């Protein structure tokens, strides 16, 4: 192993079509024993190419086993009794009759007598039995009594909620801010408006839940989670707190049907299934039903947002005042983020207040706080630009301080045909109006090495030429396994088909949660490091075999050897013997040197068609450009962007939790009435992956799960504004709101 050495690399990216190169030299110091960094000059064979999802066939054929599919002989099924009230105390809980019902194996209380009940759906007790029908019968025999208290599930009228006018504008006076107000006074054009969003649920296809099996004191659990190691620790502690003497805990989550931020914790359902299995002494399965999934596993909070701002004669933003109020459930945070790169030179202020209601609290959801904040801010900017007589794109180009996005705006606008789209006029009196809008995206994460134990990866090369790459972290459906296979294939110089990627078993090396778009940037260079070490071992074996000094042997292009003494990969691997090469790579810390781009940028463009008769908005086409450092798995990266756009269309036009105020219960907690975009509602979607060499570790990947979901609803909101000439400031943009906006225009 050599000592740390300086390496000169090229960072940045070659010109986007029609624009200029943005390439720079950097000197970085990789850690001892790490692979030399890939950079903008690296010629890749597999990285950045279209590789099919490695587990696609398993998933499409049903051979992929999700937690939902796990079953054991003698396994019991379980359900949770949920509180029917939104607020109060548990006064009485009688479980005996339920536990005597036929087919019942275990009943456990999940709430103590006298404890607070915080929302409809709060967990009270859990029951395990032979079939769900037995369990359901037993649950009906549980007598739970409550002391009722007044509740409120509408954040708009929560204590602390701002005063609203009849048209939904915040009327509360702004707190004093002398300098900002002076800047507003001096501004040439000013604007003020209120925006609002509704609660969106995560709606993962696989609901939360698990299958638990105890072997003496050792717990084995299959869990639908996006944090295998976090949940393992959480469950060990939670079971101990319940008086169980816990030995080891092994957690499996090989396939996970989505999480979107709602599955960081094992939750009450995770604990309940462990307790039931412990009490029943047989394996137990507890998966939430769709209603529980909608109502007890978090959400993207709704919020009220208000902005006032002004521009100077040049169209530059000189003053920016922003406040938001987010619903926080009975606890948690309803935080809202706003873009800060438009207002770098402005006198500015942002303020946020959480509003508590007696409902299921928010959980992080794909770019928490962002889609809602960007919707408000970007629509506000278009209204302001329109007032100032400036085209929205020009307005962005004038005010956006992020150089990479300026390239993206220009490239995206050309690709989308922005100028032509904006110049097209709707015919007077036409029933269908078209319009176009754009919006920006931002995220900031380059991953990390892990706290305490660094993230690790196992790479094994077998004598039959196959390779394993293994992480104990989970693939929640985004394509982590595929990414791992691609990086390994690239490092070893062999086809992806030889590689098996495995995720989700805590018996493999530890890795991060799938959150904050950190998983790929945090493990990609560990995957590479493991492959790099395994390759070195293979090279040593081959060197010995052909009798050539180690330094002269290379492994590339499916061959291992030196000069004319080359072994094909398969032949080289035959030298390994029955025990595979088994190396453990680790994630080294990010280089101390400044990366080329420490965050992620994106821009999206949308075109809509609005039916002025029925108020229905159809998104007809969208284009998105997104960077995420080095694009590793191009197809899967595109799927992330297109998928985020699909989810964004749904958020913009359809999704909203509708609550019955009297009971505090969600009315549309199913997939019939909780409306999610379907195929016929989708626009023609296109995206461009903007690959950037960041130079922050040996791979240079940045996160991608969240950034592309930031801009979509905002771009659609702006397109609707352009089409009908009045803004619809309240998501989702349903027909009733479009018709009300059109009516307001007529006066």
């Amino acid at each position: 192993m050599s000592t740390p050495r300086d390496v000169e690399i090229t960072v940045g990216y070659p010109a986007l079509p029609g624009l200029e190169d943005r390439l720079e030299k950097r000197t970085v110091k990789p850690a001892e024993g790490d692979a030399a960094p890939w950079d903008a000059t690296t010629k890749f064979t597999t990285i950045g190419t279209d590789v099919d999802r490695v587990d696609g066939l398993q998933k499409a054929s049903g051979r992929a086993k999700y937690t939902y599919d796990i079953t054991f002989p003698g396994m019991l099924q379980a359900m949770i009794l949920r509180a029917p009230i939104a607020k109060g105390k548990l006064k009485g809980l009688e479980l005996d009759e339920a536990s005597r019902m036929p087919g019942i194996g275990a009943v456990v209380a999940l709430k103590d007598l006298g404890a607070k009940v915080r929302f409809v759906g709060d967990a009270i007790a859990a029951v395990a039995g032979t079939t769900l029908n037995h369990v359901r019968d037993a649950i009906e025999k549980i007598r739970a009594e409550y002391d009722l208290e007044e509740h409120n599930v509408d954040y708009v009228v929560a204590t602390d909620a701002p005063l609203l006018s009849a048209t939904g504008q915040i009327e509360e006076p702004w707190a004093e801010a002398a300098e900002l107000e002076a800047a507003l006074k001096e501004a040439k054009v000013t604007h003020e408006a209120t925006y609002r969003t509704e609660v969106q649920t995560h709606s993962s296809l696989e609901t939360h839940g698990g299958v638990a099996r105890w072997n003496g004191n050792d717990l084995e659990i299959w869990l639908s989670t996006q944090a295998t190691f976090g949940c393992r620790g959480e469950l060990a502690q939670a079971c101990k707190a319940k008086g169980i003497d816990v030995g080891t805990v092994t957690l499996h989550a090989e396939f996970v049907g989505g999480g979107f931020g709602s599955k960081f914790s094992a939750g009450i359902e995770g604990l309940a299934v462990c307790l039931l299995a412990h009490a029943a002494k047989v394996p137990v399965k507890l998966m939430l039903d769709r209603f529980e999934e909608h109502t007890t596993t978090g959400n993207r909070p709704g919020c009220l947002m208000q902005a006032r701002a002004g521009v100077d004669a040049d169209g530059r933003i000189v003053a920016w005042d922003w406040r938001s109020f987010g619903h926080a459930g009975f606890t948690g945070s309803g935080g809202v983020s706003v873009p800060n790169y438009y207002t770098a030179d402005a006198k500015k202020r942002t303020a946020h207040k959480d509003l508590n209601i007696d409902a299921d609290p928010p959980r992080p959801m794909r770019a928490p706080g962002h889609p809602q904040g960007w919707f408000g801010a970007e629509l506000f900017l278009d209204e302001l630009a329109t007032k100032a007589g400036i085209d929205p794109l020009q307005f962005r180009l004038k005010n956006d301080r992020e150089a990479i996005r300026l390239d993206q705006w220009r490239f995206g606008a050309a690709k989308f045909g922005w100028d032509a789209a904006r110049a097209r006029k709707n015919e007077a009196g036409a029933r269908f109006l078209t319009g176009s809008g754009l919006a920006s995206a931002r995220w900031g994460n380059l991953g990390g090495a892990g706290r305490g134990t660094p993230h690790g990866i196992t790479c094994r090369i077998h004598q039959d030429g196959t390779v394993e790459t293994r992480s104990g972290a989970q693939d929640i459906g985004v394509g982590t396994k595929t990414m791992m296979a691609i990086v390994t294939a690239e490092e070893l110089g062999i086809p992806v088909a030889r590689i098996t990627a495995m995720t989700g078993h805590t018996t493999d090396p530890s890795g991060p949660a799938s959150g904050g778009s950190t998983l790929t940037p945090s493990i990609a260079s560990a995957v590479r490091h493991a492959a790099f070490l395994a390759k070195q071992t293979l090279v040593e074996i081959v060197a010995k075999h052909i009798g050539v000094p180690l330094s002269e042997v290379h492994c590339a292009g499916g061959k291992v050897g030196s000069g004319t003494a080359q072994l094909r990969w398969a032949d080289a691997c035959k030298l390994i013997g029955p025990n595979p090469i088994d190396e453990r790579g680790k994630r080294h810390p990010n280089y101390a040197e400044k990366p080329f781009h420490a965050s992620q940028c994106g821009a999206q463009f949308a075109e809509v068609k609005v039916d002025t008769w029925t108020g229905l908005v159809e998104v007809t086409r969208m284009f998105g450009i997104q960077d995420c450092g080095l694009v590793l798995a191009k197809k899967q990266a595109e799927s992330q962007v297109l998928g985020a756009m699909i989810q964004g269309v749904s958020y913009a036009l359809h999704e909203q939790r509708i609550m019955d105020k009297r009971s505090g219960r969600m009315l549309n907690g199913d997939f019939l009435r909780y409306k999610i975009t379907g195929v016929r509602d989708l626009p023609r979607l296109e995206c461009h992956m903007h690959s950037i060499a960041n130079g922050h570790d040996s791979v240079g990947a940045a996160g991608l799960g969240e950034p592309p979901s930031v801009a979509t609803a905002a771009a659609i909101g702006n397109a609707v504004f352009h089409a009908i000439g009045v803004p619809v400031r309240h998501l989702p943009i349903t027909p009733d709101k479009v018709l009300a906006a059109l009516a307001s225009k007529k006066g």
Partner: protein
Amino acid sequence: MKPFTYVVPKSLAEASEAGKQPNTVLKGAGVDLIDRMKERLQTPERIVNLLPLKDELAGVAVEASGELKIGATTTIAQLEQHEALANPALAGLQAAAALTASPQIRNRATVAGNILQFTRCWYVRSEAFHCLHGGRGPTCLAMTGENRYHAVLGWMDCVRVHPSNLAPPLLALDAEYSTRLGDKVRRRKFTDLFPAEPRAQTAEHTLEAGEIVTAIHVPKPAAGTRTAYCESREKLTFDWATTACAVKVVLAGGKIAAASVVLGAVAPVPLPRPKAAALLLGEAPSATLFQKVAEAAYAGASPLAHNDYKLVVGKAIVREALEQATR
């Protein structure tokens, strides 16, 4: 779901015998029924499956008289794709079938089941709520609760809407239905199938317990007949109509000689609007005329707190249906 006895009849006679037993329900494809049973909103002791009676109940045929006979257990997809429906006089029925639910559901769900389905009201279809229509509470909860998808017309003490896509065009076409109860066979006008006074405590339809709908008959349309069916929705894929309208016009010499207008999804029953239709008689089609008809179709509407948008949308849909039928 509670355990029940599953009756698989070998003949219609056997089915109608079984259907007369107490606490027994008839099942088409079960798309609607099983949903409610899973929620334990309906807990029958016996279920009589009608699907095996293919010879007696399934299929579409054009009779010698020119009448179209639709077997009760014909699937929505079979109806939609039947060649007899490729006729401008039946275009409304075909469109209504094609717009229903999703391909999977259309391939399973039966025509009779669609017409006889229970309302979609989110209060009555939830085991957590106790309302009058569900027979478990004193009042209609939607009337004073959340009602964006509820009735704007023709409601009394319950603001549910009738969700069937197929009922409005069948009413517009003056369809009839045949039933069998025990040995009794009857044939009646479609209007008789729905309660004249749709109160909370009246069912969605007027059938007696155990009465089996065996077929639906669409009389031979007069020459020059055209129908159309349009609906408004919140999304294009797999959504329920927020308002719907089926129209029939008979055009003769550029004038409308006969007409009917039936609204769906806005009242507790599919709602014929004869006064609105009468405005069309003797007139030539025009945008102004259609606007007038649309206004008349929604005359006397009483929207609730969250659904006055239905009036604007509903009128647009009446106009659109009339435009399509006269295009």
